[in-house]
């Protein structure tokens, strides 16, 4: 108990992991992460086309990115749409998860399955359906259109993470809160929300990222005046062959990684308190 190494001793009692399993795990990590990391050195490349290994070192591509209004606007648009999507999808998804956690039987199961459809349905099918519907409602190319479409595919992620958090939530606490004078709405704010906050935060981050890097729906919904960053990146490769995409991609990788690490960082701070 006196030495700080005591907790570590517990792990030594576990069977050692064989070297080949470690090697295999390492390979899998490399396989998944390496392509993403390739993009970062390339963003500092001096070449005017895509080349690997990168040549020289320059901030030129970043300069391009941050001075070109097309890139900057698309980045701003993406942040706007992703933020609004995160807010809307988190609200809807949390409400759905709380409601479904109280319902039982076939209806709840059916609704749950229906809400999951956007995840399993092929993106292109969803995109075409949304496009046709939004054309009629004149929502294509509007912020509202993007947000609604992205919310539809982001809600399932919120639903999953909040449902998971509610699994460890004791509904008796709501009765206790009621007996102590809390209306259902107050009990939700003071008891339910704090206890499932991690699930809500995770859901919000997923919703943000789902929207932030969504490309298929965005391709259909784009207008000359409004497009998101993934669409601009797609354009830059298929239409313009602009190496600025390396810088854009690197920025996206870094941004998304930071957002994903956010809960861990916050959790660390809470624990230290």
């Amino acid at each position, binding site marked *: 108990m006196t030495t700080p190494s005591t907790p570590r001793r517990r792990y030594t009692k576990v069977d050692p992991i064989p070297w080949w399993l470690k090697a295999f795990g390492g390979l899998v990590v490399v396989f998944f992460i390496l392509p993403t990391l390739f993009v970062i050195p390339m963003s500092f490349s001096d070449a005017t086309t895509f080349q690997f290994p990168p040549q020289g070192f320059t901030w030129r591509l970043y300069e391009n990115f941050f001075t070109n209004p097309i890139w900057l606007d698309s980045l701003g648009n993406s942040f706007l749409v992703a933020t609004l999507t995160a807010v809307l999808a988190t609200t809807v998804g949390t409400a759905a998860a709380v409601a479904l956690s109280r319902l039982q039987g076939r209806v709840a199961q059916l609704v749950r399955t229906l809400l999951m459809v956007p995840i399993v349905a092929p993106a292109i099918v969803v995109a075409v359906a949304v496009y046709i519907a939004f054309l009629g409602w004149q929502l294509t190319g509007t912020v509202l259109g993007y947000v609604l479409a992205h919310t539809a595919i982001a809600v399932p992620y919120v639903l999953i993470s909040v449902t998971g958090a509610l699994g460890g939530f*004791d509904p*008796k*606490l709501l*009765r*206790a*809160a*009621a*007996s*102590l*004078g*809390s*209306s*259902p709405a*107050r*009990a939700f704010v*003071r*008891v339910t929300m*704090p*206890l499932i906050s991690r699930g809500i935060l995770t859901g919000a981050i997923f919703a943000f990222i789902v929207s932030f890097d969504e490309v298929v729906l965005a391709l259909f919904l784009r207008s000359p005046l409004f497009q998101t960053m993934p669409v601009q990146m797609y354009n830059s490769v298929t239409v313009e062959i602009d190496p600025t995409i390396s810088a854009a991609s690197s920025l996206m990788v870094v941004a998304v990684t930071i957002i994903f690490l956010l809960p861990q960082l916050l959790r660390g701070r809470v624990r230290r308190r």
Partner: protein
Amino acid sequence: MTMTPDTTAKATGPSTGTPSGTEIRLDRVTKDYGLAAPAVDDISLTIEPGEFMTLLGPSGSGKTTTLNLIAGFETLTAGSIALNGTDVSDVPPHRRNLGMLFQNYALFPHLTVAQNVAYPLRERKVGKREIARKVAEVLELVQLTGRDDNHPSQLSGGQQQRVALARAIVFEPEALLLDEPLGALDRNLRSALQTEIRRIHREVGSTFVFVTHDQEEAMNLSDRIALFNNGRIEQVGTPQQLYAEPETLFTAKFLGDSNVFELGEAALDANVAWDGESWVIDPATVAAHPGVRASSAVVVRPEDVEVAGGRDDVPAGANAVRATVRDVEYMGSYRTLLLAMGERGLPGRTRVSPLQGEYAIGDDLVAWWRPQAQRIVAA
């Protein structure tokens, strides 16, 4: 209800605490979930101000449903519930101002002990300094001073239930509802908390409604007990009344051990016949139970049954039946003889002290009791 310990109430025992509690009146209350039988079936019960009332019964008897109806967690199918004469049947639980204790404590895990106890006060917009004062006062009452900043997970089960108790009484509710609050605790802790709950009931003088399936707990704590069976109240009375004067066979069997002699379709007179025996019925008993005639049973508590070696040793006027010793249970200060009684060998039991000598399995005896000790109950 006052939070300050009331020494005069403490001295005079239960039910005489500060008479400032709330009357709870249930009038023809029914709760029907649409199953074969209603969970609560046309119950009427008045719980007096400041009374410690226990709803006792086996699981599924409707006692917990009744408590939830009082709390407002369940809606009434029929009937009404009134607090101090005000109908609250349609008032949602958070406006009924009733404290509640749950079996699993239901403490908010994200809040500290002090924050848990302060919760109902914050909901009532009580000032910060007043909250601090009341929290300290009530934590002292439940003997948890100094644990303010602990989280519930850092406390033992008994301590958690004390915090829940503090939280449930700190806002001086109309009444305290307790839903098997000691069910999750081990035996020693249960008995310690029983004492504590009785003390706190005396000190706060509020109406307590306690649900349990444990008859010993009910006898130990209550001013009165309402015994539930199949969604109905079998009998209401003080623990002594229920034990000494059971009106039904169910009551006699549920509270304590009983020797039961079913009389079948015998009319009650000065004499009844059972299994070839002719017994005397105390005239007072016949007079007290005019309705219990057609199908009834004679009930005798084990401690009222004596054993003798033969008919000649039985005093005149006593009722007797022949019995064979089936087993002897050593209980410390006394022994219990398990008997087979009468021609049919009906199971029975009696208590004997070591002074009465030794008994062995297979001994043929005569069991006897005075007519005054027996009760006539509806079978």
